[in-house]
């Protein structure tokens, strides 16, 4: 194990690094060609580390653009990707909101851009800690979205994302999200893979001609993005985005299988990762950093004799409808934990709404108990998560709902100052 100071890794090594640095190493391993950087807590150290790599000649040929706002971050990354280069950027919270207009532009141009988001709570009031509302606010922008629970998963997911996005049947941009400060600023051992092995896994960098669907080439001039009348194919172009994203589900599974074959790490089927769901009486659907701790809670409760299980939701977009239906047929009750809000929606939390929608037309599936906790980085302890599981078991056995239910959703951990 190498203590990460200024030692730059070229061959496979395990180093103790923060989640943000893990993302930077992944971008370096993926040999990205254009990086656009703007600082925002808690993502800043991603772009700082990349700046170190570029300035020290460890990413030869990579262009590092220091733009003046997040809107410009996405605009420059879109134009760079359009020209036929592999691109990367990182942002969080308010920055993501500022570039919102350009998110639609990226997905409408079908560009394989990978962006890491160190999620933070939306302002006002200012909050820089883990809360995934920022990512869910971008639900309909046409970006695929994945959540990471561990530091290694950040590194791995970025590599898998490039392979997925650059597939010619997908060609959609992707978010790789993880909890601000919880993953971004804590250190764990991460295996940074050997460059040759990564090169064998990832598709080659775009060749001179660029992508097959868009190119900036004076010998084959084209114009992109001009006006289409309502009677034109605008409606159909938009439909194709949805079509590509739904079909991407199969690709996600294939990429996860390929990844496991080459690097030996398993992430369920890529879309969801079940944990001790066999023989479970109740299950918990959960995503992000809370999933890692929930594994411990499931282990502890299993030891005490409770039959509980957990489903780590890895991808939110495309939503794994079939997998959720399969899981919901196995247990009578599923809790769904959201670390985000969807104000005014049927359940108040984004993922619980989607889970309920997926199960709506299918008979014989679990009852869903929507839950929200940990907003704005509020600490969710192991005890709290064990109590959540116990509460599910009680609900399953006796039908007793917990207190702190608001409009059908359980808001766990609300402060009561005595």
């Amino acid at each position, binding site marked *: 194990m190498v203590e990460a100071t200024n030692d730059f890794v070229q061959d496979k090594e395990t180093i103790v690094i923060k989640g943000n640095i893990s993302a930077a190493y992944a971008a370096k391993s993926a040999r990205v060609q254009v990086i656009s950087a703007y600082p925002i807590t808690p993502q800043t150290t991603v772009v700082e580390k990349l700046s170190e790599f570029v300035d020290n000649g460890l990413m030869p040929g990579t262009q590092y653009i220091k733009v003046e706002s997040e809107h410009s971050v996405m605009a420059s990354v879109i134009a760079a990707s359009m020209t036929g280069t592999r691109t990367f950027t990182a942002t969080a919270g308010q920055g993501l909101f500022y570039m919102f207009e350009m998110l639609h532009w990226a997905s409408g141009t079908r560009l394989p851009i990978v962006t890491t988001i160190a999620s933070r709570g939306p302002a006002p009031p200012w909050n820089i800690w883990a809360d995934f509302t920022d990512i869910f606010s971008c639900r309909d922008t046409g970006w695929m979205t994945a959540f990471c629970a561990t530091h290694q998963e950040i590194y791995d997911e970025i590599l898998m994302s490039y392979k997925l996005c650059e597939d010619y049947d997908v060609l959609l941009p992707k978010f790789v999200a993880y909890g601000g400060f919880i993953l971004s600023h804590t250190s764990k051992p991460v295996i940074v893979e050997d460059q040759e092995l990564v090169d064998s896994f990832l598709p080659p960098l775009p060749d001179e001609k660029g992508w097959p*669907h868009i190119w900036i080439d004076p010998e*084959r001039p084209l114009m992109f993005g001009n006006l289409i009348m309502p009677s034109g194919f605008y409606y159909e172009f938009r439909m194709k985005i949805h079509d590509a994203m739904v079909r991407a589900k199969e690709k996600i599974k294939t990429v996860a299988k390929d990844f496991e074959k080459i690097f030996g790490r398993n992430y369920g089927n890529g879309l969801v990762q079940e944990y001790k769901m066999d023989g479970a009486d109740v299950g918990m659907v959960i995503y992000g950093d809370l999933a890692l701790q929930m594994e411990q809670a499931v282990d502890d409760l299993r030891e005490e004799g409770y039959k509980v299980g957990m489903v780590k939701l890895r991808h939110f977009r495309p939503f794994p409808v079939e997998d959720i239906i399969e899981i919901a047929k196995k247990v009578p009750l599923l809790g769904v934990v959201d670390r985000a809000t969807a104000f005014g929606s049927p359940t108040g939390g984004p993922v619980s709404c989607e889970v309920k929608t997926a199960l709506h037309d299918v008979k014989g599936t679990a009852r869903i108990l929507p839950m929200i906790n940990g907003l704005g980085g509020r600490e969710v302890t192991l005890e709290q998560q064990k109590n959540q599981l116990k509460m599910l078991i009680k609900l399953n056995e006796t039908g007793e709902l917990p207190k702190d239910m608001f409009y059908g959703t359980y808001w766990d951990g609300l402060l009561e100052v005595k």
Partner: protein
Amino acid sequence: MSESEKWKKINKSKEERPKVQEYKNWKELSPIPISLPIEGNMGTTGDWRTFRPVIDQDNCNKCGFCWMYCPEGVIEKKEDGHFEIDLLYCKGCGICAKECPTKNIEMVRESDIKDG
């Protein structure tokens, strides 16, 4: 047809690709709206004219000012040096007539012209 096969139709050299893309339905559609350059993309804009520029070729001194100032670029210098206006696309703005130093271009009302 896989996605990449759809794009191969346009992802070709200028000579081999179609002049204008044609699609029957969303299944055939390329994934993004790209447009290919073509003259007259809004049709024959010559139809916009109320007045048509007519060059007095006998007195024209072939200075080229009309060619220089034409916004549309429809005035062409021929091999023998004289200038011709492409009436298919000329919008009849009148700049050539106004800028001609020797006043040899006249704006004639379209309805006054009897042509076959």
